[in-house]
């Protein structure tokens, strides 16, 4: 068949019907029915996270979250795990910079029983010393093991350099060895009391639940979880000066893990839809300029990409690739040339159409599973955004022209403003980096400490 088939119009993307109500404790609930699989997902999204870790205590929010299911109510840690398994349910916690999350996923029949355990974990964690000794030690070992993983090392180093250690987004969410050492069980108890509050959270329930009973059941299950004074979010700091080139030495590494980071924008900016489209063109799709150049044209890497982190305060822009050690300098040169290219090579009609369709279908895919719905609406709850925000995003995509994208590129992507962070074999890569005009590197260790 020589001819490509005709492609009809893109389908419209519709929001699932969301019901919103508040429990008497102040917990906001968003409920979304979906009965494709016989499961229910529930996510408690807390509006404060690691950005409120106190100075010198990086890791407190996440280790507090981790301690919650290490014994709660009448169950010890192993009994919680065993009972959740008996119910065929998962309960997991996670912390990000802007928020923390506790999620439960269970078959429809056992969902209420799993939520009863979740209620204990939120309201009545034991936070006992014996469990703390174990969890604290595991975490300390875990952040040291992070040094084994070049991708994790580059994350830690880039954030510390881009934001600075005093910024709420500067230090790793998991903490550093010394900040973990500084945290005490009393810190954890205090963080739990101040943050794990129903009036500091949104609960998203998605899946195959009984709509007529949900509110009364949740009210009963979560009645003993009491509100308190809701904490205020962290305040950002100005961007610090940053070096142009940072290397974390990994002698004899067969690949260099390359990351270029620069200041980005926040979640509430009207430029978010346009920058999302611009990013699809630059490094947010397989046929993006970065991936096509570094992977397909040159074979330097298994994949190159870029992204904006849209957060409560301005997050980062990052371009990334893991490349053959011997191709490090040419790969960096090509990466920079693609960033420059956003100003020099016009956005084509095809690129513009691709960016629009890609973002539109990403919204549709996000809404096409129970877990995806919980994530989509959980993020809205985290940032206090209206439930129709995905549709506003879709409308903004449609209203953004190729010229708008070009203007956004000029404004937000400056190839000379970023810091290039590389985890690789210094001796092998430094001469080439100098040849392409980069200054001598600032050296960091695998925790991102400047040497």
């Amino acid at each position, binding site marked *: *068949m020589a001819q490509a088939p005709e*492609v009809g119009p893109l389908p419209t993307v519709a929001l699932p019907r969301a019901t919103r109500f508040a429990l008497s404790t102040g917990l906001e609930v968003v409920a979304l029915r979906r009965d494709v699989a016989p499961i229910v997902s529930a996510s408690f999204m807390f509006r404060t996270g690691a950005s409120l870790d106190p100075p010198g205590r990086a890791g407190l929010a996440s280790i507090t979250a981790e301690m919650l299911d290490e014994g709660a109510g009448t169950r010890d840690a192993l009994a919680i795990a065993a009972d959740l398994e008996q119910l065929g349910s998962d309960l997991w916690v996670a912390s990000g910079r802007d928020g923390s999350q506790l999620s439960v996923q269970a078959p429809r029949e056992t969902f209420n029983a799993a939520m009863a355990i979740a209620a204990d974990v939120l309201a009545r964690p034991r936070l006992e010393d014996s469990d703390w000794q174990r969890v604290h*030690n595991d975490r300390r070992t875990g952040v040291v*093991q992070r040094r084994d993983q070049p991708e994790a090392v580059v994350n830690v180093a880039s954030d510390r350099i881009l934001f600075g250690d005093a910024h709420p987004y500067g230090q790793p969410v998991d903490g550093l060895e010394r900040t973990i050492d500084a945290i005490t069980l009393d810190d954890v108890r205090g963080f739990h009391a101040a943050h794990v509050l129903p009036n500091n959270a949104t609960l998203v329930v998605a899946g195959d639940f009984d709509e007529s009973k949900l509110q009364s059941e949740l009210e009963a299950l979560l009645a003993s979880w009491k509100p308190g004074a809701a904490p205020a979010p962290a305040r950002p700091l100005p961007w610090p000066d940053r070096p142009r080139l940072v290397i974390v030495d990994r002698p004899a590494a067969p*690949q260099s*893990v390359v990351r270029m980071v620069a200041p980005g924008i926040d979640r509430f900016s009207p430029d978010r839809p346009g920058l999302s489209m611009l990013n699809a063109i630059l490094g947010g799709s397989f046929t993006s300029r970065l991936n096509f150049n570094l992977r397909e044209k040159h074979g330097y890497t298994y994949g190159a990409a870029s992204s904006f982190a849209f957060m409560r305060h301005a997050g980062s822009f990052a371009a990334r690739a893991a490349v053959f050690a011997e191709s490090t300098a040419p790969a960096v040169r090509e990466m920079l040339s693609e960033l420059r290219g956003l100003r020099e090579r016009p956005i084509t009609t095809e690129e513009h159409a691709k960016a629009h369709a890609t973002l539109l279908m990403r919204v549709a895919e996000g809404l096409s599973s129970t877990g995806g719905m919980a994530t989509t609406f959980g993020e809205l709850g985290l940032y206090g955004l209206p439930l129709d925000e995905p549709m506003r995003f879709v409308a903004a995509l449609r209203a953004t022209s190729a010229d708008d994208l070009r203007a956004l590129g000029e404004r937000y992507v400056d190839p000379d403003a970023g810091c290039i962070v590389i985890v690789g074999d210094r001796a092998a890569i430094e001469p080439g980096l100098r040849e392409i005009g980069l200054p001598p590197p600032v050296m960091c260790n695998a925790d991102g400490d400047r040497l």
Partner: protein
Amino acid sequence: MLTIPFDTFVLENGLPVILHVDRSSPLVAVDVWYHVGSKDEAPGRTGFAHLFEHLMFMGSRNAPYPAFDAIMESWGGHNNGTTSNDRTNYYEIGPRNLLETFLWLEADRLATLSDVITDEELERQRKVVQNERRQSYENRPYGRGDLAIPEAMYAPDHPYHWPTIGSHEDIEAATVADVRAFFQRFYRPSNASLAIAGDFDPAEARALVEKYFGWQPKLPAPARPPKPEQPRLARDIRIALTDRVQLPRLRLSWHSAALFAPGDADLDMAAHVLGGGKSSRLYRSLVFEKRIAQDVFAYQSSQLLGSMFQVGVTAKPGHDLDEMSAAVTAEIQRLVAEGPTEAELARARNTHLADFYKSLDHLQTRADLLNHYQHVLGDPDGVARDVGRYEKTTVASVREAFARVVGEPHLDLRISPEPAAPNPVTA
């Protein structure tokens, strides 16, 4: 009862087609499996099935490179492929208006790939794959273990002797002539299956499948060597490696029952009881109580020609692998002697079933599962049989299957920190 509703039919040329309608989102997924994996590679060409997967995106006669990706991405679709020992799959996901485009692209590469592939395209993907090997194994902590295990566990003439990613040397050696020969032998309708899932009209989809695939020639399924005997180690093997890691890790591997063979489901349950999460025996003993291990894991990695039962443990600072080995062995012996408790088995079964439910949440996973049953059982209608084999497990059957496996010789692979690891961890 849990089901994935579907219709199925077979084209004249032998291609089985599976249609699963789900109109809850305006999306469609097309999923194609080819019954070829790294087990089918020729000597000196390890990694070829996976390299070939990359070449499937390098253009076909009517959709020259980079049309495959460019066309679908222009409409918001995306795609990928994966290769294992046993099979290669390709899938596309996108808006429902792309269904015909997906089928056209898949059919065109099945019909014409070998006519248009060039040295230049091979060369480009060779480099991409070599980067993938470095990224996924060589520059990843403990990755050397994954490369060493198949070589140690399987004899040189067994098709699982080499890892799917292959060796750099063999990836270098591959030629366009190899690509054509491989394509002609394995990429034919009778050696594939096609699943479509999502928002479509079944009659229209059937007509489209006939239009794009129906004309392709009928060729017999490729001849296969007889299934090798269930592999056995003659004696225990011990391997010591170093890697750029902070903590030493012990990995134990046994040969075990093949995918869907008697014992396979029992061993999934045994793995869960032994090392499948916080309520497992190894976690309780080594991480929770003794606090000598940083992490533990156990799983049955099920494959067509024979599986491996694997156990792993990472020692905490100040503890060594002899201590890990003794502690793990004690738990293994206890499970051999006593079997799981009824409560442990119930938890393992419930967790397995719930994980299965959860996997049904995703459209492409359902398409992939139907193809998986077609591949392994010769029939997409495998849900009841698959779920049922776990329901049939008993304390006695799990104990017996586990005892049989761990009673055989095994591989003891130890990965220790390189002597000059930077920033060593202190106890």
